[in-house]
């Protein structure tokens, strides 16, 4: 990775020029549940792109949606999309990814869960978080 100063300057200029499109890493602790859900949904598109080593343009062709929309999604421009939209796009993606299909099934199961006692719900949440952590410890959760 021995870049010349000129190459580095070009990268900086390009990043500054496309600043608005870049992913903005923000503090998520104060986000609403809606925004957190949107970010989680967007994350699946990014993971798919990274796993398949494709570009967002290729993903837009795969899903038959405009590249600008995909760019917004993979750069977490969550204000531009509703949860309904993101779920719709994710359903399109699920046709190409069994993992996403299963994820949507899991969401379906969670949504259909009956109202339980607070302690039981807490227990289930804790178990799910524990499973996520275990997955991450084993390296690539999305591999």
């Amino acid at each position: 990775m021995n870049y010349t100063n000129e190459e580095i300057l070009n990268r900086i200029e390009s990043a500054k020029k496309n600043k608005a499109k870049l992913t903005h890493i923000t503090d998520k602790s104060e986000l609403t549940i809606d925004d957190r859900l949107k970010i989680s949904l967007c994350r699946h598109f990014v993971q798919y792109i990274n796993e398949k080593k494709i570009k967002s343009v290729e993903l837009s062709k795969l899903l038959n949606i405009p590249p600008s929309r995909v760019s917004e999604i993979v750069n977490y421009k969550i204000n531009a999309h509703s949860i309904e939209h993101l779920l719709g796009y994710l359903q399109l993606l699920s046709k190409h990814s069994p993992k996403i299909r299963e994820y949507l099934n899991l969401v379906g199961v969670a949504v259909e869960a009956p109202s339980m006692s607070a302690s039981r719900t807490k227990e289930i949440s804790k178990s799910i978080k524990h499973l996520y952590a275990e997955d991450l410890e084993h390296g690539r959760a999305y591999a």
Partner: protein
Amino acid sequence: MAGKKPETDRGRIEQFKLSRPILLNGNAVTELKIEIDHINFGINKKTKKLNKSRRTHFTISDVVRFLRELHDEDIEPIERDGHVLRFAVRVNCPVAGKFFGKEFILIFDTNEQRKNKERTKSTP
């Protein structure tokens, strides 16, 4: 006549091992290569050399704090070149007393072949 040698001198480059890895795109980053002079001085667009006067006073641990903001994130690289993934993201400065909250553009690479390596620079 020999062509002019490309300019690559960007001052001090520090290698740093992280005690706690940064999880980026599901991969653990444990080692960093930081162009600290480049970050603090910047490169002059005309001369393509490091500026003589400082623009920031970030330390290695300050840069690590910037990178910690990326922990557990999934980001699309702006470019792929074989095993090298090139990223550019906007991060608000997490360092108290040094441009705290100001937005910076963090430009860095990861090398999938040389796992656990990351090279970085940030630009305000």
